[in-house]
């Protein structure tokens, strides 16, 4: 059975290796098209003018960062619970119950909070359950930990884009680069948490590092809903959500926004896959060094 699972894994990897160049070309074409749509095809906003077009890079980058941090959260939970059979089966049941409860809540709870659509509640619940079992199926053992590291690193890159493009939009529109409002501050805290996660992974040589990092990632992920819902819960200077939050957006602008998000998602998947392969290779080399050190203790010093 184990050999068959390893064979399956190699099959997936070979398939992915062959698909990689095609996917890279498609992503490059999609990114170019999305850039054209954002800079040329999208209508100019009446109040802010052209500077509003920053939104087509700022918002998709934020959504992509949130998704990557969420995958990191799922991987971190799995890494921790797989160490214990009972905890693993409890986590499986929690994931199933969460999906079912979200679908039931979408049907039963009336009225839902302002701006929350029943379909988005059900989709989010099912996405959580689906992602949990996808990671479980395709990433076993230390590969879960590798995926957690990769998604945190790429998530930090996208979160950096959010923190850089936000002030570049705020300066001409608000007249200031930065304000300590809840949305902005919680995003900065999120970035700092994941920077500390990466520092822990980089500089700690302890065997317990993956466990500590997984625990830190779970706390970090708790900040994601706070960032996302802060503009619903608190009075903030940040613009209200344009999708599902009572705000409105021109359908042509929404189309450009979604095209850009799709392009950034493909780009993030591409970087994650490259970084994941690099991480697996790195671990194999470290293992060889460790084995050599065991065979010849003088060479390890």
């Amino acid at each position, binding site marked *: 059975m184990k050999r068959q699972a390893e064979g399956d894994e190699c099959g997936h990897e070979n398939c992915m290796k062959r698909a990689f160049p095609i996917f890279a070309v498609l992503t490059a074409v999609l990114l170019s098209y999305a850039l054209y749509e954002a800079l040329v095809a999208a209508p100019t906003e009446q109040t802010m003018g052209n500077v509003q077009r*920053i939104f087509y890079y700022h918002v998709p980058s934020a959504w992509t960062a949130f998704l990557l941090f969420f995958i990191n959260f799922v991987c971190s939970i799995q890494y921790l619970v797989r160490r214990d059979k009972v905890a693993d089966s409890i986590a499986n049941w929690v994931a199933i119950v969460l999906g079912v409860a979200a679908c039931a809540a979408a049907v039963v709870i009336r009225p839902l909070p302002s701006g929350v659509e029943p379909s988005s509640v059900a989709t989010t619940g099912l996405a959580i359950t689906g992602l949990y079992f996808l990671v479980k199926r395709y990433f076993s053992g230390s590969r879960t930990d590798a995926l957690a590291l990769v998604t945190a690193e790429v998530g930090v890159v996208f979160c*950096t884009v959010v923190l850089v493009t936000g002030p570049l939009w705020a300066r001409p529109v608000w007249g200031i680069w930065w304000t300590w409002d809840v949305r902005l501050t919680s995003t900065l805290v999120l970035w700092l948490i994941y920077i500390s996660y990466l520092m822990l992974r980089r500089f700690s040589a302890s065997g317990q590092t993956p466990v500590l990092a997984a625990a830190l990632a779970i706390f970090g992920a708790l900040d994601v809903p706070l960032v996302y819902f802060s503009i619903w819960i608190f009075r903030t200077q940040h613009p209200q959500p344009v999708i599902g939050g009572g705000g409105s957006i021109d359908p042509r602008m929404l189309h450009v926004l979604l095209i850009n998000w799709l392009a950034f998602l493909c780009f993030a998947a591409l970087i994650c896959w490259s*970084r994941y392969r690099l991480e697996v290779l790195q671990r194999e*080399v470290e293992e060889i060094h460790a084995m050599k050190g065991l065979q010849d203790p003088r060479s390890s010093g």
Partner: protein
Amino acid sequence: MNFLYAAYSATWIIHITYLVILVRRYHNLRSEIDELKKGEPAPGH
């Protein structure tokens, strides 16, 4: 308009910098693997 170009340029500078870091890491790892292979005894010995 300057802020718009600055934001788009900054986005791509961040992504390209990260990609360059990844490529450099990959080359370092490849040379490390090559050195490990050189140190291995030839098959059959």
